[in-house]
């Protein structure tokens, strides 16, 4: 099954296999598709062995940072006498990203199973799934899946008859991009304003409720049952022979000016050029791609040449001037005023800044004002240097990376598409789109 398209022959559908399959949403349907066999297996294993398998598989965090999942889990010290917690980050708010939403809508039990395994592996009795407030349908589906799992004895005090306690709960956010940052998420879960915390202490030492905590993305946790069922070596079949650092499959959400937007799943190392033109159908009729953001709006913008040279894994994107990020591919074509879209991205960050750090609070707001002035035809020749200087002062100087995330599209946009900015400044006129 594909959603909203049938899977392309070159896709590898592992996590997205049941997207669009209404039966997979229910417990019975999920069990028919092999659901909860991995959890049963996990509950019979020593937690440390699960961590080892996940470590060996090479699975890395799918939320953006790409930290090795098994290593993160191994930071949780068993037998420290403290309650441990697992938080699932389902606050998917990065513009361009909508993969976790489809996972939760179509395979909520996969997430419940992944959370249960993850919680057991790190010695936690409780996992919280923090879902962004706007995702009303995923909230209902995951809540229903949890309810079914409790009723069937899969969750609770005696999970699957193993004598072990595994609780999974949904916690609904209320509209704040910043709560996708792990320490802000923990504050929000505790009933506080979603202000990020200074690290250290890291979550594994003092996380939610000041107890050892692990935070994993939805897609990361959903991959875990597959790894447990099939083994670490099996998962490593999907990688470039020359790059063992990125393994498995990855979901990409594709949006913007492209023929077939939607979710696609490809193995690590897939050529980005084939992805854009073959799988996603290429540009709209009569148009050409202008700029591509491959990993959510927080990563550097690519030129078409950079994008076409990229291989789709953590290292492949870095080698071509950007990052894999969350896998949210945003495409702008030559009909778009790129400066306006960058200004709109800056406005997003200005709106979402928690305003805790000066560099971010002031930097996001001033970048937006200057960019919008340029778009309105009132830019000055000094504006670009001012923007770059603001960007520099916003990078690496704040509690969390929202500030850096705002500076990234602006600075990389100016670096790679300076002529577009200068044309608007010199002409002092509104943008005129290219003729199709």
């Amino acid at each position, binding site marked *: 099954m594909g959603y909203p398209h049938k899977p392309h022959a070159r896709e590898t559908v592992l996590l997205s296999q049941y997207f669009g399959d209404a039966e997979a949403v229910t417990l019975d349907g999920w069990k028919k598709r092999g659901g909860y066999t991995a959890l049963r297996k996990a509950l019979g294993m020593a937690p440390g062995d699960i961590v080892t398998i996940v470590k060996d598989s090479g699975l890395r965090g799918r939320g953006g940072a790409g930290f090795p999942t098994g290593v993160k889990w191994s930071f949780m010290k068993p037998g420290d006498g403290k309650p441990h917690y697992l938080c699932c980050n389902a606050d*998917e708010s990065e513009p361009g990203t909508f993969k976790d939403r489809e996972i939760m809508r179509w395979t909520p039990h996969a997430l419940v199973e992944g959370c249960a395994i993850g919680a057991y592996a790190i010695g936690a009795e409780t996992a919280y799934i923090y879902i962004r407030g706007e995702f009303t349908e995923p909230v209902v589906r995951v809540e229903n899946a949890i309810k079914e799992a409790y009723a069937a004895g899969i969750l609770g005090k005696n999970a699957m008859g193993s004598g072990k306690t595994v609780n999974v709960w949904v916690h609904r956010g209320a509209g704040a991009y910043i709560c996708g940052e792990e320490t802000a998420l923990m504050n929000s879960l505790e009933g506080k304003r979603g202000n990020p915390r200074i690290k250290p202490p890291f979550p594994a030492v003092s996380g939610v409720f000041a107890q050892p905590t692990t935070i994993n993305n939805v897609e990361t946790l959903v991959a875990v049952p597959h790894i447990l069922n099939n083994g670490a070596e099996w998962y490593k079949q999907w990688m470039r022979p020359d790059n063992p650092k990125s393994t498995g499959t990855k979901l990409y959400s*594709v949006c913007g*000016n492209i023929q077939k937007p939607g979710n696609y799943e490809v193995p690590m190392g897939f050529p980005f050029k084939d992805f854009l033109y073959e799988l996603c159908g290429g540009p709209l009729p009569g148009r050409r791609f202008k700029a591509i953001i491959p990993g959510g709006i927080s990563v550097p913008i690519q030129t078409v040449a950079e994008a076409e040279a990229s291989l789709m894994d953590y290292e492949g994107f870095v080698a071509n001037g950007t990052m894999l990020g969350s896998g949210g591919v945003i495409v702008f074509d030559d009909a778009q005023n790129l400066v306006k879209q960058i200004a709109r991205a800056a406005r997003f960050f200005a709106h979402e800044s928690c305003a805790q750090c000066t560099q971010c609070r002031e930097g996001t707001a001033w970048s937006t004002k200057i960019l919008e002035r340029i778009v309105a035809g009132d830019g000055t020749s000094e504006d670009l240097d001012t923007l770059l200087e603001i960007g520099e002062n916003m990078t690496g100087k704040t509690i969390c990376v929202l500030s850096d995330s705002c500076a990234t599209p602006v600075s990389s946009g100016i670096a790679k598409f300076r002529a577009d900015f200068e044309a608007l400044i010199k002409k002092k006129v509104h943008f005129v789109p290219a003729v199709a």
Partner: protein
Amino acid sequence: MSPGSGASTPEYFRAPSEWGPSDGKGFETDPGSGHHEHQTYQSVFTAGSARRKELDALLTRYPTKMAALLPALWMVQHERGWVSEEAMAEVAELLEITPAYVKGVVTFYTMYHQHPVAKHFIQVCTTSPCNACGAEDVVDAFLRHTNCQELGQTSPDGKFGVIEVECLGACGFATAIMINEDFIESVTPDRVPEILAGLE
């Protein structure tokens, strides 16, 4: 579906369109009342009420009472349509925190309404991905067809309010909009009259 139908089951197990007051009555939608409720404040979490039971069940999930704050505020909003100063004080007392603290949290999150809003509160995503697919034209169409003078204002009949919202997380289905708790994907200006006609 009428608001509040199926109130005996906990809220999240019902479809978003059914999230609403447990007494089945509509919300107060007069924005003139500011941050305070018109009449004498009626408690949301009266002892023995369905909402109180829901809250008590929630409290067992967390090691602290404060952690139930966001869910408790959601219950208030689903019951009343917005979160008044009086409701903040009630929640504060139940969770053993101060009303000022609760207000600090309410004002941080964009989805809690601090005053009554239109019956159909329309949020149009205009962040870059939707923007590049024509979201601004969708905003204009909604403003035109609802007779809302400008963004953030309620239409003269109190039925509609339109605002721009930051990324709704459905970028592949541009333009994404939310009306109260319901998502609508792939909205174009032509679809706007039909969408509005479908609202009571």
